[in-house]
């Protein structure tokens, strides 16, 4: 059989696998992926070696198919043998290295004897101070904390729990649905987040699909960055949750020059969202559109940029300082721990209204560079 015959047969099996995967039939999907991989590897064996591009695309495809079939040993073996071939062009080398990294991640998850919810979320931070495979530690820690906060909020939202305004999630969520970080293929600075699935959660009684978390997490983030408010309102009907997701998403988006974008995507490319400065502007517009109109017509909103030095949600105040000038702002209202907490000792832009007797009443706060 020729390359085209074998490749076509592989395509057909891969499409069948994808359709099974979409309908939740993971086991059959893996069997079809394995069949497709076998055929694609045969196609690789018969391709004319002078057809460099076709050969390279076929090699990447065959390794990807073994990976998707969860046959990691064959995927790794083929990837290494192709990487050892000096004729393989640069673009394919990059993709093969990424695949090797993904194969190791999956193998290490298997070896860890910890169960993870199907699918994982890849996070990639690009531009600014980020270089390939390296990034400022504080920036990455901040983003990881924010992603964890959004994951927990997604779990609470799916579990139809009342919005948590203070403190961390209940212990049951923290222990049972615990995000893990895995190294992911380099490109910019990348990592993967997988959720440990240790036991059936009581809060999922009404919806026993914890794998919804990763999917829902990405769908919500996508909707927060969209100009179409209907998407977010359909996905998150409760206004208090909408507000929480919008503010957490805004914390994720870039605000200056330290990085240009943060991209999140599902393991099988099923959904992806990129937060850029433009997305941040869009999120800010949405937050503003949902904000209640000031009741007193004499009140005008003011902005102040400085370092957030103190916040006490119980006593309902925060202090921001810039060039020695302190600002004491009260009535934090719906402010939430996981939104404001990570901003302490960082530069922020705070919006407030000046009430009677110069009382500064809180409206909004966001990270600023």
């Amino acid at each position, binding site marked *: 059989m020729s390359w085209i015959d074998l490749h076509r047969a592989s*395509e057909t099996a891969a499409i069948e696998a994808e359709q099974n995967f979409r309908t939740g039939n993971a086991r059959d999907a893996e069997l079809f992926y394995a069949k497709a991989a076998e055929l694609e590897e045969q196609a690789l064996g018969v391709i004319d070696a002078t057809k460099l591009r076709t050969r390279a695309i076929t090699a990447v495809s065959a390794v990807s198919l073994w990976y998707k079939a969860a046959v990691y040993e064959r995927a790794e073996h083929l990837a290494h043998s192709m990487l050892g071939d000096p004729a393989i062009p640069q673009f394919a080398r990059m993709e093969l290295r990424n695949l090797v990294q993904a194969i190791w991640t999956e193998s290490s998850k298997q070896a860890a004897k910890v169960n993870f919810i199907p699918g994982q979320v890849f996070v990639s931070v690009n531009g600014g101070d980020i270089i390939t495979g390296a990034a400022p530690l504080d920036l990455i820690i901040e983003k990881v904390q924010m992603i964890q906060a959004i994951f927990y909020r997604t779990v609470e939202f799916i579990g139809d729990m009342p919005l948590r305004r203070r403190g961390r999630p209940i212990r049951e969520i923290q222990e049972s649905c615990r995000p893990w970080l895995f190294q992911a293929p380099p490109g910019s600075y990348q990592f993967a987040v997988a959720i440990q699935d240790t036991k059936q959660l009581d809060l999922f009684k009404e919806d026993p699909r914890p794998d919804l978390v990763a999917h829902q997490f990405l769908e919500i983030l996508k909707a927060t960055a*969209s100009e179409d408010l*209907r998407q977010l309102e359909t996905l998150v009907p409760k206004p208090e949750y909408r507000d929480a997701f919008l503010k957490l998403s805004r914390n994720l988006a870039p605000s200056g020059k330290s990085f240009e974008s943060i991209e999140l995507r599902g393991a099988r490319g099923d959904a992806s969202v990129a937060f850029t400065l433009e997305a941040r502007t869009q999120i800010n517009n949405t937050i503003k559109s949902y904000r209640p109109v000031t009741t007193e017509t004499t009140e005008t909103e003011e902005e102040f940029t400085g370092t957030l030095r103190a916040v006490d949600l119980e006593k309902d105040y925060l202090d921001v300082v810039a060039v020695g000038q302190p600002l004491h702002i009260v009535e934090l209202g719906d402010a939430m721990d996981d939104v404001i907490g990570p901003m302490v000792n960082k530069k922020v832009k705070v919006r407030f209204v000046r009430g009677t007797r110069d009382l500064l009443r809180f409206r909004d706060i966001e990270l600023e560079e």
Partner: protein
Amino acid sequence: MSDLQHLILARLYERHPGLTQPLADSFAEAAYVCWARHHQPPVTVSLRRDNTEERRVADFPVPDERTRRAHANETDATEIGAYGVSLAAVEAVAGLVAVGRAETLTGADWYVSPSGGDIADLEDSIRLEVSGTDAGGSADIHQRLREKVAQAARGDSNLPAIAAVVGFKALEVAISSPVVRR
């Protein structure tokens, strides 16, 4: 409207050698379901490429209940439908047809080539990057196209690529010129 040329999704497999009939039918069905969420047929779709705009009429059968149920997952339907519309659109504006598909770490890439060419291999083919939005507006579509182009330019491959973003509610398809990794 009647003076405009048509954007034809039906029987894509007859013109795109890389598509099988079941797959092409599934692409077309998903696109009809996505359009029918917002519009009645026929619709006029704006195909934007660089600074040019071409308007085409797309007629489609209103999907029955069974078809709607088969494409009830909005995310999947938007993604699958976007492939159908993108392939019909690049065929319409650039004479390119799907010649093959190859798997990648995160999904699959489609390859397009000028219609009527030899498809014994993928040596001269162009990678097609597709994205779809169900309800996003024009600004959303162009933002996504910029992201796709940046991704292709930065990206995992130095093969030439074309990006296409489909907006079902907006009745728009934004298509980039071929980009290569910088």
